[in-house]
């Protein structure tokens, strides 16, 4: 989850998010280097007493400052396209979960075997127990087996919502009447938080998403328990 005074991304919990994080580091470094260079040149130009009144053309530098930016752009484009195609690869999910957006909660359906469905409401601030996170916790979490490709089909029952979990590198719009597919692999066990990412009315800020990645047996025990409770 996010922490106070955070500047960068949350720690990656999926291979895709790791790639995105590293790419961002790479692109940001290039951008910072260019900006520093330009800022230096500006201050140097502004603070010199020298003048040059006779320069006419400068073939060499023109070539350099055309080719160099083109090379830099290629150095940004290649990793970017690599990740784009990586995210688009055909994966073979082990599990399909439907995430349905409502005003103002999410409901999750696990229907590969039995019909398991449950709602996931935010825990109101006054009901939090010590250690829990304000506006982020829910009564029921979306539990997934770790290290398994999971397909999430996102839709909505009323207005537009968006299902997002930053540490997994996932965001997908929930459109009524449409089934949007996304997938992720949780590389490690843990609890990953997200929030609704499309304005959907009064309690848009109060319908968070919590994904809990656990070992497979724990997932199987949890789903049996949930089915009994239903």
């Amino acid at each position, binding site marked *: 989850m996010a922490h106070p005074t955070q500047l960068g991304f949350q720690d990656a919990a999926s291979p895709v998010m790791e790639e995105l994080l590293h790419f961002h580091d790479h692109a940001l470094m290039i951008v910072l280097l260019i900006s520093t260079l330009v800022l230096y040149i500006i201050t140097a130009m502004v603070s010199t007493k020298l003048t040059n009144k006779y320069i006419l053309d400068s073939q060499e530098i023109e070539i350099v400052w055309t080719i160099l930016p083109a090379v830099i752009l290629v150095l940004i484009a290649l990793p970017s396209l690599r990740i784009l195609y990586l995210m688009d690869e055909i994966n*073979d*999910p*082990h599990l399909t979960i439907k995430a349905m957006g409502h005003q103002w909660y999410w409901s999750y*359906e696990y229907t*590969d075997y039995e019909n398991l469905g449950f709602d996931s409401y935010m825990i109101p601030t006054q009901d939090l127990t010590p250690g829990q996170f304000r506006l982020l916790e829910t009564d029921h979490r979306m539990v997934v087996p770790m290290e398994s490709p999971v*397909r999430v*089909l996102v839709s909505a029952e009323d207005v537009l919502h968006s299902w997002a979990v930053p540490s997994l590198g996932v965001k997908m719009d929930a459109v009524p009447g449409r*089934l949007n597919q996304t997938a992720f692999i949780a590389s490690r066990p843990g609890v990953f938080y997200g929030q609704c990412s499309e304005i959907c009315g009064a309690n848009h800020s109060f319908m968070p998403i919590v994904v809990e990645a656990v070992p497979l047996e724990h997932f199987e025990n949890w789903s049996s328990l949930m089915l009994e409770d239903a």
Partner: protein
Amino acid sequence: MAEDIQQKLEKYRTAPFDARFPNQNQTRNCWQNYLDYHRCQKALDAKGVDTAPCDWYKRVYKSLCPLSWIEKWDTQREDGTFPGKI
């Protein structure tokens, strides 16, 4: 043939990748499998043959389609207002 279907169903984990629906929008995938199951049921019933092969489509649409959509369509089929051709 019937044994293959049985085997496929026993090893079923979730709806596999369907090359007819390779992209983000899986609405049609759910719809098509729902239609295919009920068409298969109707056709095999009419012939008086075992409808077990149809169960594949059922597993797939159950995996993909939201429960509320399935309930709505089932009700529509009963009422005769289902928009698809079965």
